[in-house]
């Protein structure tokens, strides 16, 4: 139901973020915080909570989904609960035996391209209206420990697992992507998808814990080039 002349896409955490008086920018027709203030960079050096909800994404499930996506030249993670990067900067996450999440990098068109093509039998579109948060900084691991019961430090993150779990009572999908030298405390940044109706609660809760750890919400500017509109 994404019409080409559709109005601006609403950010699921707009009100909560707007209350902090940030500077907004627009990414893929969705308002996104570019900067909260001059301390964004410092906060991100501890633990920053960013908003990547603007990215366009789509989902497909069903026994024919893997083959159909492969026909569209998408890389298919060989096993469930794994993800692969798209050459264009997006990703494909395999959430189960036959369910996939595809996400574009800012400005990407992979999802739009897929949606133009009616899926065949046994492939069912899964509209994705997620809220997406990103955790960055050396204390991101501690924030995860305080909010989620998964041992991320014990996972082989280089193997690109996609973790489907519960975080502060919300069903989430989490992937870790490299963010720095492997030996550094900030080696990984964590991207978290949840149902957008939980977005405000999840953002508020993670920001509250992040603040206790010395971090806080950060805009795209502090998150750096990898998450910005090209």
């Amino acid at each position, binding site marked *: 139901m994404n019409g080409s002349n559709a109005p601006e896409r609403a950010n699921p955490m707009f009100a909560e973020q707007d209350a902090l008086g940030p500077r907004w920018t627009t990414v893929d027709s969705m308002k996104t915080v570019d900067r909260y203030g001059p301390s964004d960079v410092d906060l991100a050096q501890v633990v920053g909570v960013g908003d990547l909800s603007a990215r366009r994404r789509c989902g497909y499930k069903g026994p024919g989904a893997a083959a159909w996506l492969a026909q569209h030249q998408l890389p298919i993670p060989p096993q469930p609960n794994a993800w692969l990067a798209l050459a264009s900067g997006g990703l494909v996450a395999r959430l189960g035996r036959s369910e996939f999440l595809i996400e574009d990098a800012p400005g990407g068109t992979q999802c739009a391209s897929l949606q133009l093509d009616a899926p065949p039998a046994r492939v*069912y579109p899964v509209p994705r209206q997620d809220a997406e948060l990103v955790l960055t900084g050396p204390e991101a691991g501690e924030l995860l420990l305080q909010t989620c019961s998964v041992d991320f430090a014990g996972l082989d993150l280089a193997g690109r697992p996609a973790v489907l779990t519960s975080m502060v009572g919300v069903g989430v999908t989490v992937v870790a992507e490299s963010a720095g030298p492997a030996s550094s405390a900030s080696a990984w940044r964590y991207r978290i998808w949840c149902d957008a109706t939980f977005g*405000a609660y999840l953002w508020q809760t993670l920001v509250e814990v992040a603040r206790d750890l010395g971090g806080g919400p950060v805009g795209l500017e502090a998150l750096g080039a990898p998450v910005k509109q090209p």
Partner: protein
Amino acid sequence: MRLGPIPGEWIDRSREVSFEFEGRRAQGFAGDTISSALWAQGQRVLGRSFKYHRPRGVLSLANHDANVIVQQGGRLNVRADVAQLEPAARLTAVNTFGGLQRDRAAVLGRLSSFLPVGFYYKAFYTRRLFPMWERMFRALTGLGRIDFTTPHIRTAKRYDFCDVLVIGAGPSGLSAAVAAAEAGARVVLVDENARPGGSGFYQLGGDDQQRAPTQALLDRAQRLPRLQILDATCAVGYYKDYWVPLVDADKMTKMRAKAVVVAGGAYEQPAVFRNNDLPGVMLASAAQRLIYRYAVQPMRRALVLTGNDDGYVAALDLARAGVQLAAIVDLRAQAPESAAARAAIERGVLIVPGACVYQALADPGTAALQGAQVCRLDADGRPDRATLRSYDCDGLVMSVGWAPAAGLLYQSGATMRYDAGAEQFVPGELPEGVFACGRVNGVFALERRMADGRRAGLAAAAHAGYGQPSAPKVEVEVRAASHPWPIVAHPQGKNFVDFDEDLQLADLENAAQEGFDNIELLKRYSTLGMGPSQGKHSNMNGLRVLARLTGQTPQQVGTTTARPFFHPVPMSHLAGRGFVAERRTPLHARHQALGALWMPAGVWMRPEYYARPGASRIECIQQEARRVRTALGIIDVGTLGKLDVQGPQAADFLERVYTGRYRKMKVGSTRYAVMCDEAGLLIDEGVIARLAEDHYYFTTTTSGAANVYRELSRLNVMWQLDCGLVNLTGAHAAVNLAGPRCRQALQALTDLDLSGEQFPYLACRTGKVAGIAARLMRVGFVGEWGYEIHVAAEHGPALWDALMQAGQPHGIGPFGVEAQRLLRLEKGHLILGQDTDGLTTPFDVNLNWAVAMDKPFFIGQRSLKAIAALPRRQQQVPFMLAPGLQGPAPQECHLVIESGQIAGRVTSIYFSPHLARHIGLAFVRPDMAHKGRGFDIRLSDGNMVAAEICESPFYDPDNQRQRLEP
């Protein structure tokens, strides 16, 4: 008295700390505990006992001095023996009446003969006196005062993970942790003390060089990158699958390990003799901690009472601290041949074997110890008073035995056996992945403890997948470290077995005599081990007493059940930061801006109504409802569950899970649907729309959405039908636009033909509204012409804004959940969960028409066939109250009364502005369920209100308004 610098001392002499205790200024050093600082300054009375308010001092200095608890501002129950001294702290002892020095309640000690064991239970026998005793006990008991203005502390709770968790960082724990980490495991080593090392740094026999082996191990541990040491952290429980909560000052960590090593050591046990609680009487390990951790001379002149070889080591440590040794009194018939004993003899210390302390003597001025009377033990082990001899001393050091710190082992499911050689319980069988080492295993010598730790560490690492369990077993100590009977009777009592609860030897004897001769019964009747230290210093002696009284062995007596938490946990940690998930629709901010008052609906927040200045809640609700009836209303229904099912067998799937028929529905139509469980009970309802031959879109109740999707997913996997289920609940925003001006308002935003002919009642269409792709359904839940409009969540606010703007000329306004409930009641529609309960069938609520019993199969069909053959138990009926009701109206859940008996209950009731009277739905007995039948409803105050069964819908009975164009 503060000693000169001691190697490894915990205090920082460069940082003096001033504080206040009981209104008097005091000094200590950073690193001191409250008790060590006060003791260094000569303060001997640190607290009062719970029951008799006897003066108490240092006992264990190991987190178990249950009578030395202080209040620090809003912080209750601060254990002074381990709590770090804080600058400018203002501390008061708890459980005193008039202060520590002049506690008026000390008179209770003289009344002890009137307060026998089980006094509490006996006091409450007499019903008439119950209130008096209750008031008295409430006034006299309780530790500390709650400050209700204390701010809410959001103590963090966190998860953590490791391969091997080692509990206890003494010599055996350090050894286990190092071995496991060197095998490659990720190891966490926790210790409740401020620093690791345990007894390896304070049981030195007066020789500082004895620190070296433990220091070397600690240095090695600190160099291992995969070994994390957590100081001042207590492992407070053991839960299944190696899950151990760790508590420190700031947080609780739920540690999940792959293997657990319990190296918690053993609690030193007190001897039982008259006045064994005087300030100055302490465990040997407490004196050693004072010396080596805090550089405090525990006393000037000491009498050492021992029943093991450790007492001689302690005597040498005392001598190293400049303490004069009055004598070493050994309960055993002969002094040992140990090096420490020889060294003591060489120092000229008087050794008195085969003797006991008969009683300790108090200084009448200070209430602290001033001497002790010692006598020989006769052949039966009883004190021979004819041999009494007095010793002057201001300190009496007890070293008579140990009890394993096995609480976590018990909780893990380990079995313990009493080893007669070691005179202590040791692990029998341990669960897979749980290991023990050191003193808890009955292994006491330093080098043997380290070897045992290494064995356990390697085994734990191997269990976690690292290396091999290659080290040999270390056997239990041959020479007992615990005396089997360190207990001396005294005709005047005050020989305490339990210091927390002031339980004397005679109390246990009397309890057993009264028939409480089972360890669990004895515990509950006498309160043995039920105080703040949870029996860590009393259970073993209590067990020995009961064994002797009943002629059993300690093994036969057994131990009480060990339950989490093993050590008290602050309420702030248990409460901590809570996570209560909350779901908001995409229109949340729009409602907020319109003045919505929120109500929870499952995990969702929904507008109950929209507040208007000067209008009451009821007025607001009624105005919202009136607007729907006369003009145009809009409500957010995005909380409804929204599911897609697609595929050739989508219709088959729906026919199986819902009670109705959907295979022959026309594309572009909708149908009400009811879902039952296997028992034929109503569990959900909604509307099914057929979007294409192989594509249905259906809604569920707000609260049922998650469960319905989960169950349908399960069924889809089980049945293997050729269809796919997609949950769109969060992906779609949805509103219901309703009212006589509805069509005109919407038409301005869409190219769809909204005429009754092209888009009739119960039809569905897809199209664009305000440029947004949408699914539209003509439904009539509130009884007016209406459309349910579903769009992508990210476009929900834009849709809402467009509808509000287009509806402005038509008098649009939002309505909340309460107005919707009123409007639907006027139409006689039920709300699942409000008008039904967990035992309601479709037949009970007149939904027979929605149940196709002649279908081949649907879930619950078999049960409904059986239910249909049985007499009905209840029937839902619509009812009205008489117009112009005076006084309070009935409320939901008020009872229907027939001939004085309960005959049903009200499930919904509202005042209908349209009908100008109260209307409602109720369950009644089936024999009452006919139009015109009157019944009574009993209000909360007992008054009755008359009601009459009527027909529904109450409003627009022919359903003209939702079908025909206004």
